């Protein structure tokens, strides 16, 4: 025998140790940072067949991702949404640079899970947002997923606008963003109550648009420049008429502004449990035209992470395709028509979405003027300073904002019509202190809320006028203000 075995074993161990040290201290950290797939298969890998998994691991990740996504498309066509979820998870795991899949996946998770009456299952939204966080982290060099995540906050959550601002600011920092998509950040600033930032952005966008237009006078560049200019004009007028500048300068009390005096919306509501898990909601809202939406939420009273009329949308950093199905959380809108709203909410047919496991529930009502259309905000102001409610004005729900908020409590027996509330016995029926049977509210007292005018704010509302149909102001035309959309006149009925 020619080899020195002990020495060779020692050499072997030394090499192993050297490899382990090299791997542990340098290679693996580098690998983890630069080459690792950020989210790892785990249980999701079970959705792959063995050969697909093998292929995926053998270096065909992107190819398998592509094939899977083609398959997902056919599931979309069939409406087989549940089948798509794991595919989205897998595709983004296999190829974290499939931006389209992240974007579509977010939209799909956030919007497509609904009950029979097309109410979204909002328990999925934290996961949709988590997918956006993951996708944007994996693709930090492109604006797209920052934009998409911002959009989900802005449009789907439609509250907590500071989040939309945060994401869109990130999107705007990326060079590949389309110029027109920068504009939308201004809307987020406005909804977040930061008109000055919106204005600053418009100035910046205008100079960009003008230099682009100078470089090339194609139609698109002209259109973009004109849009920015018009938006800026509108904003300046609004800031002025809503008294924003006056507030800043400290002479708000002296002038005549659209947001003065605060307008009482006169909210009242009543909830009747007509059948098990079927609610009838009725109530009042003194703003005349169609278009006001009051949020209603029904949820477990002790729900984890619950806030005023919303949940903690930002709670999750991991995409969880199977959110807590024990929780009941229903959110809907009440549409105001003729100063009233009535709505029947049927949760009886979707018991997976509304499991009613808890014993106690709250029904919340919430109105945030920041979500209102611009012409309503012309009266209510950027943060609700032009709005009030005798009973339910709330300044805690959203710090720095004036919103309308109240809640009614129910038990499981009441909602499901059990025990003493069984069908044929007592009908559960709760209402706000000020609720009066509908029809009693007068439609006669109408105030005019001004639209945008070149000549400045109009003076006080006409009062005591006889019952009349809401009047619309002629839309003023001409001048710089003539460009762009102009809000129609709005009529309000003071209490």
């Amino acid at each position, binding site marked *: 025998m020619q080899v020195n075995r002990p020495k*060779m074993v020692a050499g*072997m161990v030394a090499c192993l140790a050297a490899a382990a040290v090299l791997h542990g201290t340098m290679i693996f950290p580098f690998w983890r940072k*630069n080459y690792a797939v950020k989210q790892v298969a785990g249980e999701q890998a079970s959705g792959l067949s063995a050969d697909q998994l093998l292929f995926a691991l053998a270096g065909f990740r*992107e190819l398998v991702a*592509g094939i899977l996504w083609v398959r997902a498309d056919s599931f979309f066509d069939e409406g087989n949404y549940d089948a798509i979820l794991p595919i989205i998870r897998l595709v983004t795991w296999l190829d974290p*640079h499939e931006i389209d899949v992240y974007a579509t996946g977010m939209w799909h998770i956030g919007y497509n899970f609904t009950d029979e009456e097309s109410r979204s299952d909002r328990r999925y939204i934290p996961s949709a947002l988590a997918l956006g966080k993951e996708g944007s982290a994996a693709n930090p*060099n492109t604006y797209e997923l920052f934009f998409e995540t911002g959009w989900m906050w802005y449009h789907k959550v439609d509250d907590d606008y500071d989040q939309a601002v945060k994401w869109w600011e990130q999107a705007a920092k990326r060079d590949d963003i389309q110029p027109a998509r920068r504009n939308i950040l201004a809307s987020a600033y406005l909804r977040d109550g930061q008109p000055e930032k919106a204005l600053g952005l418009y100035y910046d966008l205008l100079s960009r648009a003008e230099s682009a237009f100078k470089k090339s006078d194609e139609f698109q560049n002209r259109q973009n420049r004109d849009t920015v200019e018009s938006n800026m004009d509108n904003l300046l007028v609004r800031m002025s008429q809503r008294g924003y500048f006056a507030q800043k300068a400290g002479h708000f009390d002296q002038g005549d502004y659209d947001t003065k005096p605060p307008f009482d919306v006169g909210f009242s509501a009543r909830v009747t449990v007509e059948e098990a898990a079927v609610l009838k909601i009725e109530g009042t809202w003194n703003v005349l035209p169609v278009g006001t939406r009051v949020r209603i939420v029904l949820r477990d009273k002790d729900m984890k992470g619950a806030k005023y009329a919303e949940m903690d949308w930002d709670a999750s950093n991991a995409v969880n395709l199977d959110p807590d199905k024990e929780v009941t959380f229903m959110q809907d809108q009440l549409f105001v028509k003729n100063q009233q709203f009535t709505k029947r909410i049927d949760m009886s047919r979707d018991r997976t979405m509304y499991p009613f496991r808890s014993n106690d529930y709250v029904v919340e009502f919430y109105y945030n003027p920041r979500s209102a259309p611009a012409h309503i905000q012309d009266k209510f102001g950027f943060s609700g300073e032009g709005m009030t409610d005798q009973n339910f004005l709330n300044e805690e729900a959203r710090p720095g904002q004036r919103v309308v908020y109240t809640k009614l409590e129910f038990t499981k027996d009441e909602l499901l019509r059990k025990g003493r509330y069984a069908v044929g016995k007592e009908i559960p029926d709760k209402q706000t202190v000020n609720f009066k049977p509908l029809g009693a509210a007068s439609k006669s007292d109408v105030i005019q809320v001004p639209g945008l005018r070149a000549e400045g704010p109009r003076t006080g509302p006409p009062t005591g006028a006889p019952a009349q149909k809401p009047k619309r102001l002629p839309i003023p035309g001409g001048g710089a203000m003539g460009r762009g959309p102009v809000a129609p006149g709005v009529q309000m009925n003071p209490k």
Partner: protein
Amino acid sequence: MNAIVSIAKTTVGEAIRRRVLLVILLIGVLFLVVAPGLSVLTARQSYTVLTSFTLGVIQLTSAVIAIVLTVYLIPNEIERRTIYTILSKPVQRWQFLVGKFLGAVAALALMMTLMTVTMGLVFMIMRQGSGMEALGGLFRVPLMFFVQMSLLAAVAVFFSTFVSPIVNFFLSGGVYLVGTFFNPLFDTFSKNENLPAIVKGSATIIHMIVPNFANFNVQNQVINPGAVITNEATYYLQLVAYAVFYVLVFLIGGILVFDRREV
């Protein structure tokens, strides 16, 4: 040294005449040639898919070749009794084993070069001369694959000193898969805070001992040009050192077994 080189040379000569290997190689090359046709899968990311697929074909083909080539190295010599004439010459067993391994690696290099050149041609035709400078970056991926496959060959050589070729095929293939899996697996594992320390500790130890083949898969960045990686060259050098250490581990292990082996 002479003996090692001679044995390596004959091993290459044999390998490039092995029909099985040539068939596998041919299939790989065919896939590379038809690869551009697959870009219909996702129009927007055609470049990504093409690159990913092409590199994947090279990697998979190379892995199969590396294993098939290596598992028969020693058993064939014993079965044909060529080993008797060689070992009755002044050739030490370790020289024989090292010569065989180096021959396998050289044959692998030849075959991988062929595939890489094919890939280069396909890309040249696809892009018709434009963006060729980006192509330069592409070739470091097969280079790292080659380092990876050399390590895989060492694993197979080690096993071939004591198990039959069929068993070895699955064993080496298994080590390759586990080694590819383990990095990402450990990655998730180590992030899980609920695990007891002992489990975590032993996972760390296993992670340090298993040859982690995933380290060599550096294609992400080539496929997705968005990723910015600094100090890549250093990383590649570390990888080579890492592979050399492991090759030594497996070769020494192989020699220790083979030296006692009755052939």
